[in-house]
């Protein structure tokens, strides 16, 4: 491959990388040494993973030209189920083998919940042919309803020590959530790039008919996609309840926009078929840097949300012009 074709293939990633470096510099200028201090870096490292794993959950569905509006609701319900088990069967302070078993079961139950929601989504979309927006809109409302019925609007809290470690602990100085996120990102990258299912996901996103005519079982691939999306939502849920030490029916509602933002910024095409995990990860880092930087500047949360919106539009405008430029080159 020649130099210029390497550039074209990885141009998105390179541009994002440059954007990331500039954002770091910008934040450093505004915030001084506080920004690069270990305290800030560590707190960023704790917040990023849950959004990151949720973004991966969104990304995989967008690759098939779909979308998953129910990831936050799934995560909340999973967290609630896990939290119920944790609070019903053990005392907050306890530890030991039986506690460990219950914790294990709670996590399993939580993951199973979101996987089942994923299965529901997958069946609706693959077998009945409902469009992804409508299917996941419906499941989002339904799951949210279940969450409200179970919790009656209350917060469930009071988990054993060991659970807190998942969201707050350190291994060799690296926050546990980051480790989990890294594993999840690598796993997703392997699935997408190195498995037959992964290749099929991209192909279905670009042209489901030709893919079907090539012998791929679209139904099975789509169901796997939404199962995977559900699984990741569940993993994010475990980290979330651990960090917040509680579970509620409506946590993280603003996360939905951010997962779409991270995916789109990371190069995922809303029309499906294209996108890289590396791009999404870099986009997440940029978002986290901006978020922390703004936080340090005591910028209100709401202004931050507005800034996300502006950034999303600016990113899309830049894409518009670069696409136009690229098209002029090839006509």
């Amino acid at each position: 491959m020649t130099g210029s074709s390497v550039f074209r293939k990885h141009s998105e990633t390179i541009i994002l990388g440059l954007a990331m470096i500039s954002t770091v510099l910008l934040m450093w200028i505004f915030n001084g040494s506080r920004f690069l201090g270990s305290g800030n870096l560590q707190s960023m490292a704790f917040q990023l993973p849950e959004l990151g794993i949720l973004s991966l959950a969104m990304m995989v569905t967008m690759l098939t030209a779909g979308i998953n509006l129910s990831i936050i609701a799934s995560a909340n319900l999973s967290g609630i189920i896990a939290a119920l088990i944790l609070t019903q069967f053990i005392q907050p302070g306890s530890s030991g083998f039986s506690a460990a078993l219950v914790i294990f079961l709670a996590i399993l139950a939580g993951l199973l919940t979101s996987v089942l929601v994923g299965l529901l989504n997958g069946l609706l979309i693959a077998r009945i042919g409902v469009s992804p927006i409508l299917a996941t809109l419906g499941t989002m409302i339904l799951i949210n309803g279940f969450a409200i019925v179970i919790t009656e609007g209350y917060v469930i809290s009071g988990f054993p020590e060991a659970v807190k470690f998942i969201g707050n602990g350190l291994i060799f100085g690296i926050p546990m959530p980051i480790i989990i996120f890294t594993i999840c990102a690598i796993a997703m990258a392997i699935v997408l790039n190195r498995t037959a299912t992964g290749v099929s996901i991209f192909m279905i996103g670009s042209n489901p008919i030709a893919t079907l005519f090539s012998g791929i079982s679209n139904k099975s691939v789509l169901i796997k996609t939404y199962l995977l999306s559900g699984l990741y939502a569940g993993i994010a849920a475990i980290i979330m309840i651990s960090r917040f030490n509680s579970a509620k029916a409506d946590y993280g509602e603003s996360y939905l926009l951010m997962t779409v933002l991270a995916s789109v910024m990371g190069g995922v095409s809303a029309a499906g078929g294209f996108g890289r995990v590396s791009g999404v990860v870099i986009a997440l880092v940029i978002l986290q840097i901006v978020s922390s930087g703004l936080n340090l500047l005591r910028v209100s949360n709401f202004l931050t949300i507005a800034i996300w919106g502006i950034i999303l539009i600016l990113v899309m405008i830049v894409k518009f012009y670069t696409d136009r430029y690229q098209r002029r080159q090839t006509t």
Partner: protein
Amino acid sequence: MKKLLARHETYIFLVIVIFSIVITAINPSFLTLENLFDLLKSYSFMGILAIGVLFVLISGGIDISFMATATVAMYVVAIVLTRFGGNILLCFVIAMSIGIVLGMINASIIYFFSIPSIITTIATMNIYYGLLTVLSGGKWIYGLPAWFREFAELRVFSLTNAEGITYGISIITAIWFAVLVLAWFILRYTMLGRGIYAMGGNLASARRVGFNLLHLHLFVYSFMGMLAGIAGMIIALLVQTVAPNQIVGKELDVIAAVVLGGASLAGGIGTLLGTMLGVALIAILGNGLTLMHVPSFWYNVFIGLVILISVSVTAYRRLKREKRMVTVELE
């Protein structure tokens, strides 16, 4: 007859009838004029917004920033009222103008930079809402002038019941009706209406045949914005207080109602009758659950189920119809 059965609206209507029968059987006070007039008043908010969303969906786009727009409009009006005073006409003019301006911003971004409407309106939703919350400090506004409350209680048509209590069709319902008539006229009798359908049916051809796409985009999103402004006023009138976070988060309920009524997310398809039936279905469901003393927690579960069943049935029917499409003239 066959044509009637093929129409989506017929099914929604049947479901409404069935629900109504069940609810009345359990609680006869459902089918009283008093209750129905009350429903018409409280759901005019959703009803007006649904009309705006319908226009956008028919044109082939989607808008989820309308709640944020409504919030901004009603907040600004509330500030003007409490600081400078005014009259009801001024309120509506301000609210509608703000809505139109915010809608035009949406339209311009979508048209000039070819950014998908879902992404644009996710961004502007956050920008409008974020900026408003920051600038307003999140304060609630009470103390609206007395005439404001009196206006809300006006009726265009009154009756008195056995206990001497008057009830009737509220002026708010009349406003909804006026908007409905205006929308019907535009869709059915103006070139603007044909243009909106044409845009949704085949964007490229719409341009070729001579429609001014810029004007159509501007109209559709400003109309949505204007209706959002009116809706913002209505909430303020109904609740008599104004807060930045009152209504944000309920966008998807409105979209669900419009989709239930048969509008297609792909564009080109949708009727006012269907949309109003969709809103009616949601209204009856909500009201019914209350009258049957079902705890409000269950609301979302039911709405979610209704949406999922409805879209599944629609999708499944389409699947079956497409299978039958290709027929060959046999001997």
